[in-house]
């Protein structure tokens, strides 16, 4: 893998929401790089800022109340935060695309799916209607929808959740984007379909050479697909590194607990009354974050110094960062 200039470089990204109750810092100084053709996994529980990070990259944070207050997002050397809306419309769906976790409601109910895919192509390419429909058909074949000629004329209500997610993927990839952001693409699907969709994304990624930003709380998905991982907690990156070192040698207590709380199929729990391990406590209220480490109140290894001052992200070994004072390589 080349260590040249990254395709996407996010630096110190900070996004806040102004609510009547106060300022919610949803994303705090998040930085990461995404290389061409690479898959970066973003893990974290609900409310850890994963989705807000993704939407910030596309500049789709509703403003007000949301606001990107700090940082830079360089795509191909261009800082997207400095560009206007019309430039971003050309980027969205064309260079950077995204799929969501809600395939059931992410398609326009009154439009044939073929038309919806074709519409994306027409938004970004100067092609005739017939040509865009042709390309839509090609996309349906690529996402392995059976009888694509017939399905082209289907309305979304005639399709199952897995099929709709395939259509969403077809829409997202219709213009051969350089980056695909997948925001929990399989959460709403059942397990066998999840597996098919993941294989499909993986296959298309290899075919088109685009980079993938995989947002999920499913560590299995990350292990399977990603090369690099960032772990997020309460809007911050708490650990980052390549997938093997994160899984084999998690440094942050949060990552360690996350990995221990994965249920293992077939493990006997009856005799020894062994319960699935959980992480005690709750995510801190973003309106009222502790002064020190955000994970302090749940951390089994917490020390006095963790409470007193904010913890910086440290580079502990090359390409390996952790936001914890006690962690050592």
């Amino acid at each position, binding site marked *: 893998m080349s260590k040249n200039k990254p395709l996407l470089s996010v630096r110190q990204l900070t996004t806040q929401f102004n609510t009547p109750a106060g300022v919610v810092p949803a994303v705090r100084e998040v930085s990461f790089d995404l290389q061409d053709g690479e898959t970066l996994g973003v893990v974290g529980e609900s409310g850890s800022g994963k989705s807000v990070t993704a939407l910030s990259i*596309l500049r*789709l944070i509703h403003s007000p109340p949301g606001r990107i207050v700090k940082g830079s997002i360089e795509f191909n050397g261009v800082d997207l935060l400095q560009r206007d809306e019309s430039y*971003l*419309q*050309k*980027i*969205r*769906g*064309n260079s950077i*695309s*995204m799929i*969501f976790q*809600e395939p059931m*409601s*992410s*398609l*326009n*109910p*009154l*439009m044939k799916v073929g038309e919806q895919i074709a*519409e*994306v192509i027409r*938004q*970004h390419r100067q092609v005739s209607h017939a040509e865009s429909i042709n390309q839509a058909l090609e996309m349906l074949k690529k996402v392995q929808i059976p009888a694509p000629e017939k399905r082209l004329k289907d*309305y979304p*209500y*005639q399709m199952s959740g897995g099929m709709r997610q395939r259509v*969403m993927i077809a*829409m*997202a990839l219709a213009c051969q984007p350089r980056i695909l952001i997948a925001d929990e693409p399989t959460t709403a699907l059942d397990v066998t379909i999840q597996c098919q969709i993941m294989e499909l994304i993986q296959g298309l990624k290899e075919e088109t050479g685009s980079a993938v930003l995989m947002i999920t709380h499913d560590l299995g998905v990350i292990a399977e697909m990603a090369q690099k991982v960032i772990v997020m907690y309460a809007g911050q990156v708490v650990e980052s590194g390549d997938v093997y070192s994160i899984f084999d040698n998690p440094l942050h207590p949060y990552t360690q607990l996350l990995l221990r709380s994965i249920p293992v199929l077939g493990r006997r729990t009856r005799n020894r009354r062994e319960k699935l391990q959980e992480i005690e406590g709750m995510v801190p209220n973003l309106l009222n974050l502790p002064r020190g480490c955000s994970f302090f109140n749940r951390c089994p290894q917490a020390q006095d110094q963790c409470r007193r001052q904010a913890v910086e992200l440290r580079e502990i070994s090359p390409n390996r960062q952790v936001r914890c004072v006690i962690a050592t390589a």
Partner: protein
Amino acid sequence: MLNIHKIISQKNLLIGGSIVFLAIGVAVFAPFIATFDPITDADLMLSEMPPDDSFIFGTDPQGRDVFSRVVYGARVSLSVGIVTQVINTFIGVSLGLVAGYMGSRWDDAIMGLTNIMLSIPVVVFALAIMAALGPGLFNIYIALGLTNWAYSCRITRAQVLSVKNSDYVKAAKVLGYSHFSIMFSQILPNVLGPVLVIATLGAAEAILMEAALSFLGLGAQPPTPSWGGMLASARELFFIAPWMSIFPGLAIFITVLGLNLFGDGLRDYLDPRNVLKSKD
């Protein structure tokens, strides 16, 4: 996605739809249905004849056939209903779409205007416009078309506000649709259902308004037959020739009833909570 079983099970829709369909048929095929010419077949010798075999609705003081005049009058009434609602809906939907989608200052300005429109009684407003423009059918289109768009504007805006936050509109934004495309290809088709209902009910209202304005002498001018105008001229003769007021009155009553039933039926038909049978 028309569901025949569902339509049949909705009696309002079926009955109202039949009446509206019939009324439109009468208006379109008036020359074939009318037994006499409504204007030129006047014979003072046959003045104020009660209904009989040849004049089934009787005749008026000029000896014209009331039935033929009622048949031709359908053209005036229905054209008022349709034309004014096309204008109303166009204005209301355009403004509602902009207000709901753009929000902030656009929303404030358009909603302010809409509330002002709602605060002025339509009759008074229409009368004022008619007084300024003078009587006539074309001016009725303008007067009623420009005064009654506030409801469709509010309904459209409310619908846009809910559709705007749907996942498919978010997806369209993510995929780089322009604002124009989002408004017209994603949002507009999904807000039209309730607007259609409002337009149908509004058409009934417009027909009544036209009758009222014609009754006051401001509508279609004689000798053009219009139901309101016929009622006005029959007023003094009610005890001598009641058929002259009864039949145009019935025509207004049945058409307006039909449109109202159709509008109610349409609302029930389009109501997603009212799903009788759904496949898969």
